[in-house]
């Protein structure tokens, strides 16, 4: 394989990380919480699509939409039941609750669908395109395109619509936003809904590219994407995009040229170096402390 091949597959993996990281970063930006259960919503999305397509025989596109719809509902329910009662609690308490939700989702999945890995048939087929030296699978192309589209739509949503404006206001100052008549609770719920919907898409793409589906499928990509969000500057949407892409590319190139086993170590090593040089991530804003 040539360098270009590694680069493209890195871009594809990075696009998946970026979509997951967008969910992390939006929730963090607005609710100031690390939603550890996000990775498991990805897994749930993968399972829903799997059953919709392979058991009930829906066309793949319907499967994706069903997965998105159900995951969005799941996100809202989780937010209502587990996170909303803790709005004024210390952040560590919320973090532990999120971990509890993550365990809950993983173990429910294990009970419902057993821990035997399921083979996920790619939603876009197994075809490849050859361009000279470069061999690209359909999944790779679709993943990259979907990621770019999501990025553009999300940026437009946040900067142009009323809800997006409310989100930015809440992320800047919750109290002040409330005084201006913004419904903070609804805004946070919408953020969770969007994040979970994106997680479903990420789940489908992830399983299409790496076709084994298990209750723990989401955890490692979840942690990597979280890393990507911090890498790019947590709370920043372009930061999550950039962080995800870079993380995917670094991981793939490290696998190809340095060592497969040590690729994770290299990824995390790069993260540490970046955070030491830029403590708020690549595109994060350095917050000045007020005394």
């Amino acid at each position, binding site marked *: 394989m040539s360098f270009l091949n590694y680069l493209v597959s890195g871009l594809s993996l990075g696009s998946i990380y970026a979509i997951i990281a967008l969910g992390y970063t939006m929730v*963090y930006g607005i609710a100031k919480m*690390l939603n550890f259960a996000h990775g498991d919503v990805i897994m749930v999305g993968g399972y829903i699509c799997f059953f919709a397509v392979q058991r009930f025989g829906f066309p793949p596109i319907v499967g994706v939409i069903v997965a998105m719809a159900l995951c969005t509902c799941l996100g809202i329910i989780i937010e209502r039941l*587990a996170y909303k*009662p*803790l709005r*004024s*609690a*210390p952040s*560590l*308490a919320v*973090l*532990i*609750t999120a*971990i*509890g*939700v993550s*365990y*809950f989702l*993983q*173990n*429910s999945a*294990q*009970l419902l669908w057993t821990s035997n890995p399921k083979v996920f048939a790619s939603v876009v087929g197994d075809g490849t395109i050859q361009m000279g030296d470069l061999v690209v699978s359909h999944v790779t192309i679709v993943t990259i395109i979907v990621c770019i589209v999501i990025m553009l739509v999300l940026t437009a949503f946040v900067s142009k619509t009323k809800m997006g404006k409310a989100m930015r206001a809440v992320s800047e100052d919750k109290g002040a936003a409330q005084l201006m008549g913004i419904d903070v609770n609804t805004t946070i719920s919408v953020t969770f809904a969007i994040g979970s919907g994106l997680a479903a898409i990420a789940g489908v793409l992830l399983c299409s590219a790496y076709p084994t589906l298990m209750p723990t499928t989401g955890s490692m990509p979840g*942690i990597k994407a*979280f*890393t990507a969000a*911090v890498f790019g500057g*947590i709370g920043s949407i372009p930061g999550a995009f950039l962080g995800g892409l870079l993380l995917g590319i670094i991981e793939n190139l490290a696998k190809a040229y340095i*060592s497969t*086993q*040590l690729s*994770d*170590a290299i990824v*995390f*090593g790069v*993260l*540490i170096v970046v*955070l*030491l040089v830029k*403590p*708020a*991530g690549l595109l994060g804003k350095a917050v000045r*402390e007020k*005394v």
Partner: protein
Amino acid sequence: MKKLKNLVKSKNNAWLTYAVVVIAYVIMASLRASGNLSSKMSGMLVPICAYVAMALALNLTVGIIGELSLGHAGFMSIGAFAGTSLIVIMQYNGVASPTVRLVVGMIFAAVVTAVCGFLIGIPVLRLRGDYLAIVTLAFAEIIKSLFANMYLGIDETGLHFSIVEKKFELTETGRIIIEGAMGIRSITKISTFLAGFILVMICLIVIFNLMQSRTGRAIMAIRDNRIAAESIGIPVFKYKITAFTISAAMAGAAGCLFGNNYSSLVASKFNIDTSILILVFVVLGGQGNMLGSIIAATALTVLPEALRSFADYRMLVYAIVLIVVMLTTNNPQLKALVSNFKEKFSKKKEGESAGGLANE
């Protein structure tokens, strides 16, 4: 006056904590000696001690320094691998006494982990909040993949070491110590409940004395208000790294104890889940509350075992317990409900006693 009272109270708390640990040890040890303890329960004694020590170590970081660490399993891993390797080497070189091996191994583990903790602390403690948390997580992942790709062997010619691939051949009498992803195998289980008890006591003594000392007060001042502490001339970084190094050393010793309780040791055991498990102990027990950490670590180590009869549902129950406990202890409405209930209850009691007096 109120402050002074608090000081006295925290001392009392220390004695209470020591007492609870000693009493628990005496009860469990005598139960085991008289054969009244099920084999499952007595097999869990050492892991409980190791997890309690881990929870105390992490509580020093989270509760006293006030920084979130998601990577304490990494320190546990360093301690487990360094200590167990030395113990295997000692065994190879004919050190017969398991007590000597265990003690030397645990001290070595603590020292090695303290050095690593110091080196890791230098970059980590420069960051704040969630960024600090993610970097500790990153270090733990790096440590995990390094140990999973490390090869260490010993024979007459000395130690052999390589990374990623096994690049050495041992002579017939040689012994491979760490074998990549398979870790350390055929370990002689030399960890004892007594060693675990002593480790927990040492951790408690160190932490309580640290909290009462000048260093400890400076560290807590930094936790409560870093800027104020800095402005009165407390060297923030120096104090933080002192406590972080101590915390790492404790985790290392606990790791060594843990590692020598099983016949094999793999790097993947010390992943993010383990770090989070320990964090759960600390948060459920209460940050800065050592007795709470001890109780939470014990209860949550026993709980999944006690739920064995639920078989498949046990981890689900565990998750639900976790969520419900966090909600009831942190939600303002639920908290008010609970305290209301308590108030009513105590008023009723007061009323009863008052009534009793009137009747007389």
